[in-house]
């Protein structure tokens, strides 16, 4: 096994992520949330969906799944850990990433392509991208509105990696789809090996789907596996 893709009850993007990772050059395998051994994995992805129905609070119940101890271990070992959408919400709940995600500004589910500007290439998710690069990637969430108690220190830490923008990279109120604080779309941890984002790179991994801009993110992640294991 190279990448473990975790399936919680209610997860639904697991097969899409496996396919996206394959396009980016990595083999991936599904693991059930009750599994407690990810020994063979060089990296782990928490895909999108509605783990435990998103009941109580998005990600709140999933973070206690048995598999999360392994995810934490891998994060502490410096292995690449990625959360997409619901996976991002779970990593935040688990305290592996800063902040939290609340309901979209307009209280509506949003499913459409948005633009993201790469703010930092210092993370497992963005290392193969270029700073300032604008990507067109679908967003698909109700609770995608990023909040954090101390945004200044987050900004100062260099842990913001992706920000919503327009096609030209400008940040205007209208280009922030969900009201996220400072238009933050993706963040990393201090060690830069854990990353999370709300948009779905796997949905932009083949031209026939309308965009393959997400590939550079998935390829970054795959390249990180090799770097760590090298």
């Amino acid at each position, binding site marked *: 096994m190279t990448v473990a893709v975790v399936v919680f*009850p*209610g997860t*639904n*993007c697991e*097969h*899409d992520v496996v*396919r*996206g990772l394959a396009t980016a050059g990595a083999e991936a395998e599904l693991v059930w949330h009750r599994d407690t051994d990810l020994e063979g994995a060089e990296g782990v992805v928490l895909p999108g*969906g*509605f783990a*435990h*129905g*998103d*009941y109580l609070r998005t990600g709140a119940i999933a973070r206690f799944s048995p598999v999360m101890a392994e995810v934490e271990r891998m994060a502490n070992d410096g292995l690449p850990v990625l959360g997409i959408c619901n996976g991002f919400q779970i990593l935040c709940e688990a305290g592996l990433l800063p902040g939290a995600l609340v309901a979209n500004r307009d209280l*509506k*589910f*949003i*499913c*459409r392509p948005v633009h993201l500007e790469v703010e930092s290439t210092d993370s497992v998710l963005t290392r193969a991208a270029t700073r300032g690069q604008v990507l067109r990637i*679908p967003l*698909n969430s*109700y609770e995608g509105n990023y909040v954090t108690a101390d945004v200044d220190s987050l900004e100062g830490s260099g842990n913001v990696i992706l920000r919503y923008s327009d096609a030209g990279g400008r940040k205007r109120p209208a280009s922030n789809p969900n009201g996220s604080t400072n238009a933050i779309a993706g963040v990393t941890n201090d060690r830069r090996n854990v990353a999370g984002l709300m948009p*779905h790179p*796997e*949905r932009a*991994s*083949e031209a*026939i*789907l*309308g965009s393959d801009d997400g590939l550079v993110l998935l390829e970054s992640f795959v390249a990180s596996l090799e770097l760590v294991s090298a």
Partner: protein
Amino acid sequence: MTTTTPDHIALGMTDEEYDHVVEILGRTPMAAELAMYSVMWSEHCSYKSSRAHLGRFNSDQPWVVVGPGENAGVVDLGDGWLAALRIESHNHPSYVEPYEGAATGVGGILRDVFTMGARPIAVLDPLRFGPLDDPHNRYLFEGVVSGIAGYGNAVGVPTVGGEVEFADRFAKNPLVNVMALGILKREQLVLSAASGEGNVAILLGNATGRDGIGGASILASASFEEGDEAKRPNVQVGDPFEEKKLIEACLELYDRGLVVAIQDLGAAGISCATSEIAGNGGMGMDVDLDKVHLREHDMTPGEILMSESQERMLAIVTPENEPEVRALAERWEIEASSIGVVTRGPQLRVFSEGELVAEVPAASLADEAPLYHRPAERPASLDAVWADTPTVPEDIDVGDVLRILLDDPAIGDRSWISSQYDHMLFLNTVVEPGHDGSLLRIKDTNKGMALSTDGDALRTWLDPRRGAARIVFEAALNVAVTGARPYAVVDNLNFGNPEEPEVMWQFIEAVEGMAWACDELDVPVVGGNVSFYNQTDGVDIYPAPVVGMLGFCDPMPERPPRLDAAAAGMSIWVVGPDPEHDFAGSAYDRVVNGELRGRPADVDGDLGRRVVSAAATLAFEQPVLHDISTGGLAVALAEIAIRSGVGLHVDDLSPAQLLDETPLRFIIVGEGEELDSFAPVRKIGRIGGSDLDFGPSGSIPLDEAATIWRDAIPRRMA
């Protein structure tokens, strides 16, 4: 003096129906039995007013694997792939509680599809509401859309299309139909016929509560009125999380060959599911209600039998496989209880606390249901309506007309709806909602499936036969412009009160028109649903048959046409007949003049076939194909220009020609000057500039048109 209503009348049964029950049983029915017959013989479950006419639909094409009658229709896509499809209505529940009504509608239709062994991969939602200037209509619209989003997104099935109409007669009777599509490999197909004496019936999923017991009929029953009325909500709350687990668990059961048969629980809950699955297999069943896992503990046997709690399935498994099935359920974190045993039959026997509470021939609940030939009569008032032919003045400015039409919420941008739905999950969606048909690929094959739902209630009211035929051709054209050929139809027949001869006439005419059109196109009808009694305060809805069309292509176009692919310098052609001054029920007459009158033009089946075929062929060659429907050529051209962000010039067409809604026409935008097609084609203009420029017939700046179109729904819902 006090009078008491006999039980069967309170349950909505006629005296004749009651006598028939007595005859079947050879005795007076017990309370639970009467409840079972009353629900199973209700219009909703038995199709007693419509069945006599549904035989008009044909499903005899070689690619049909399962026709009408099962939970979903199934067609063959080649190389071992099958598609399962079905459509259902959830009209009344959505009026009572729009969010939960629509949500549970999605849940129900998905169960019909995965009951067949298929993984559900797409939902579509044909909707009808009253006009959006009324706050209550806005509340219903908003609630229904978020209910579909809330359930569909969370259960993890993309909603890839649908349609919406707004008209006064839907204000107190909104229509919420839901269609679902699933795919499966041939060896995964499961049917709902129990076999094997001694096999076990396992109830999977949600606990049984007092939800929606018997819908309207049982609610009125005195015999089950032991508790407080308030304890018996007729609103069901959907749980997409439970359904998601149920889907995964069932698909794994099929994969591992662990079920003999399976049936979802819908109307009339356990009583319907047990009798159908046993009856279908010519078997009987002994059911023990004490084994049913309950949400509330003081439920009567009748309540348990009739409860319509959501997210439940009934699987028939061999005793040897029972432990494995239970283990699998536990792994997926769903509850399972073995509630019955298949018997040699034919009796369905239901026990509660050791007592026999019902014993009926299993098949009789379905097979012996009443069948009515209700009187039908054409409304005489139609003569006057038909005689009043709409006309279009020569001197109108099409730019001004577009300012009105593009602002109509059924014509303007509907992404306010579709962007609330996950329409991308599973990485199949190649042409997303917002075009004519949506196109899904089947991954790792060259095959594609196109989907479109269409209805046209106002035109159908003007002429039910022509109106219904036209929606079939429109749906066919919608899938054809993506490169797919019409392959299978499901229909949802939403009508008023069938006891009124005029409604029955509308129904029969519409079935005739729809069936004829399907025959002309050689497309089989593999399933459907009838929703009668859409009548409030004595007002019937406009007759609203809806078609759900599956198109199929193998291979799929490498670059399927899109509305946003037009570029400056390209030519514009129209394929199909010349306009015939078809304004009855047109957007121009309805929206601009505020009239509903005249008689819509008929369709020529032969020409229809040629046009559809031409579209499916040209879709492999041309960047933009778009069918011409509501609002005619003018609106269709505006949609292409707005979506592509570039203007266009059309020189010699009169306002009437631009607004005409003659069916069976589509637009092509492409490179070059010449276009070959085996249907009539003519060049009408070219792409370029920053206006929608119709020459002497008028113009409007593209930016202005785009803003009006984009704001049509949001400005009303803000």
